[in-house]
């Protein structure tokens, strides 16, 4: 089964019918998607700025991570679920859209970046928390996160103009 065939099948499922076939379903889902994005990326940005060493530098990095994570994950969950339902409704058009592909690549890279940082932070958080300025690797991960999430936002908005 090719990716395109999976996309075609997704559109025929009950999940795929929510956005295109229900009254205001599309608008409500896009609204939740944008609000979830604002909450998740808006809070993540402050962790990234702490990682770069620009802001909130007086306290340990792990404290910022602990405090901001629940807000990020709440926003991300809303964004992910609404995004997946929207994708299921327009999967073939999305699959063929260049900006959607850029968005997905940036999203996957942002996830890998976060995962690598999370695994390394568990081992080295004592050193990283105390380091001022933060180690080059931490600053690089923070900058990478800002660039990748900005790409997600920019390509996501471009997608809405070029897909429908």
């Amino acid at each position: 089964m090719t990716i395109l065939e999976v996309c075609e099948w997704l559109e025929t499922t009950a999940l795929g019918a929510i956005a295109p076939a229900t009254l205001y379903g599309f608008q409500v889902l896009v609204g939740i998607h944008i609000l979830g994005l604002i909450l998740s990326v808006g809070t993540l940005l402050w962790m990234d700025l702490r990682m770069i060493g620009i802001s909130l530098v007086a306290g340990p990095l792990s404290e910022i991570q602990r405090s901001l994570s629940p807000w990020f994950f709440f926003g991300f969950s809303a964004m992910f679920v609404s995004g997946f339902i929207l994708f299921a409704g327009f999967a073939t058009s999305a699959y063929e859209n260049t900006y959607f592909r850029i968005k997905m690549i940036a999203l996957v890279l942002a996830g890998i970046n976060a995962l690598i940082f999370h695994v390394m932070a568990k081992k080295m958080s004592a050193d990283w928390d105390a380091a001022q300025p933060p180690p080059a690797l931490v600053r690089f991960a923070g900058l990478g996160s800002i660039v990748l999430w900005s790409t997600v936002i920019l390509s996501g908005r471009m997608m809405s103009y070029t897909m429908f």
Partner: protein
Amino acid sequence: MFMSLFAWIESTVIARSVGGSLMFTASLSAIHLLGFTLVMGSSLLVNLRLLGALLPQRALNEVTRPASRAIALGLAISITTGALLFSARATSAIENRTFQMKILLLLAAVVFHFVIQSRVTQRPQPGVLALRTTAVFGLALWMGLAVVACWFILFE
């Protein structure tokens, strides 16, 4: 008189460039959302800190000062791109109720944050009740703006 001003705005070269190019409009809209995300993320940081729900052990100024600077930067980005987007459809946008509400909420949120809330947070010993009250109003204004902005994108 005002309508002729908005009609003139729409007839300018820049407005016609924006309106005549889907990619230009889309790019401006994308940057507009990026700026708005910066504004919303920073205002959330401020208001959740004032409520005590975020970074309660950090000094108020350590959180509110950089967040206010980020709000100002985000506003500069979103107002510049928003003005360019507005120029292409000035006459219809200005008569749109949702757009009018969006601009009013934006003005209210900005004045509230930079005038009222900043005065409360800069007091030597701000009371918990005062901080929490301004946080609730701040959250209501910024979240209201986000919802109305989404409504304008999706329904208008």
